[in-house]
């Protein structure tokens, strides 16, 4: 499996190998259609379907080449797996996606421009709160607060300290922006939630499994601190390009949780500002 991936990677980079030539031509065609003047959000559905289609076709092409090579050498043919689609997602897509990513992601950005703007403003609103204030605002149960992480210098007050809680989870989630592969992004998301759970377990000094009542507010906390730009575009891209076998599973669940944080940060803006003003006055 690994050697196959390595081989495919090399083949696609080569300007002489048929796969390399094919990929180069596909990229040129894709860019001619979807970048520059073609960069229109209404073409998003088509563009992402097209990239997935390339992955499937390239797998089929590779498979056919492999069979031919085996036949010529008089070796027994490799068994045709029924997992052809799965291989397209697991093996091919991570290899070809980096080439298409900049143009494709631009379409997602255009598609979610308005929501991402709202979300950004929401994030800015939340960024003025100190750690304890934000935890309070999100109604995180008090006994789950990592107060020990709020190390204070002499002239600081606990209620004013910022960006100290759930740092490991926040830093983990920020890696979302630096990856391309949807599978990798999903793993980052899972790791983020695990980090949240680890921090809480450390606070409680025992292993604690978070039910959604606790996990969701904490994830919102981490999302608002991670300040990921274009989160709406990120979520949509992951959902479109992840292996469909994930649907209904753990990764789907986590992605949905992330999406709900994104929605909440957009919609709860006004509410938050009001309650903040109220609490300031009292």
């Amino acid at each position, binding site marked *: 499996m690994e050697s196959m991936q390595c081989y495919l990677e090399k083949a696609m980079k080569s300007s002489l190998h048929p796969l390399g030539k094919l990929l180069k031509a596909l990229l040129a065609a894709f860019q001619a259609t979807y970048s520059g003047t073609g960069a229109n959000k209404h073409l998003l559905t088509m563009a992402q379907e097209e990239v997935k289609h390339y992955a499937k076709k390239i797998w089929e092409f590779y498979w056919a080449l492999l069979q031919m090579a085996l036949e010529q050498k008089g070796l027994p043919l490799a068994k045709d797996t029924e997992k052809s689609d799965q291989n397209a997602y697991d093996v091919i897509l991570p290899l070809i996606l980096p080439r298409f990513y900049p143009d494709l992601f631009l379409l997602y950005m255009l598609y979610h421009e308005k929501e991402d703007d709202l979300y950004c403003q929401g994030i800015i609103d939340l960024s003025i709160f100190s750690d304890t204030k934000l935890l309070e605002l999100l109604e995180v149960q008090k006994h789950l607060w990592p107060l020990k992480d709020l190390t204070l210098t002499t002239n600081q007050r606990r209620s004013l300290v910022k960006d100290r809680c759930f740092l490991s989870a926040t830093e983990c989630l920020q890696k979302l922006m630096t990856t391309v592969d949807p599978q990798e992004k999903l793993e980052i998301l899972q790791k983020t939630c695990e980090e949240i759970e680890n921090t809480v377990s450390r606070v409680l000094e025992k292993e604690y499994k978070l*039910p959604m009542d606790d996990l969701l507010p904490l994830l919102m906390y981490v999302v608002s601190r991670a300040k990921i730009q274009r989160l709406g575009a990120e979520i949509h891209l992951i959902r479109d390009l992840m292996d469909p076998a994930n649907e209904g599973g753990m990764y789907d669940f986590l992605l949905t949780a992330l999406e709900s944080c994104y929605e909440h940060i957009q919609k709860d803006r006004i509410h938050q500002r009001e309650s903040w003003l109220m609490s300031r006055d009292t």
Partner: protein
Amino acid sequence: AGGGGGRSFSFKVVLLGEGCVGKTSLVLRYCENKFNDKHITTLQASFLTKKLNIGGKRVNLAIWDTAGQERFHALGPIYYRDSNGAILVYDITDEDSFQKVKNWVKELRKMLGNEICLCIVGNKIDLEKERHVSVQEAETYAESVGAKHYHTSAKQNKGIEELFLDLCKRMIETAQVDERARGNGSSQSGTARRGVQIIDDEPQVQSSGGCCSSG
């Protein structure tokens, strides 16, 4: 999600209910009891899976917990879309929590129609003395909305096994009816939607968070 062909089904079930009704302990009870947890996964209090075999049919159950706080209510549709079943839990000693269940039922029927199997669950029957929601009222209500009613105690592990088994049977039934209705298509044709989709610029008023439909 839907049922697949043959004898294997994958179902998504959402867990809804107010904060302190014990919905999480209900599911934890169900999933931890058998097969002495050899694979301990993280986050197993918010997303749980269970494999069942019902009359030769393999069922993969994925149970999605939701946050019960009122302020997150508007996020519901993001979680319950594409689900095959919903478990709506209330606390029999808390009338308010039963009212919340009624609100969920209304919303689910409006958004998902009769496709979704609803279970209304009165939890904490170990506190029978403090009951504030009468058995009759709850059962009559459930019947009137085409849901099934169950009495459980997460604390004493009562009624939970039955609840899930029954729900699975009903979901299988629904999936099979659905399959027949679609005509025996050997594989669900994943209707590749090619071509340009023109989508209105206006944000959709429906609360389903239109941006990320799994299309």
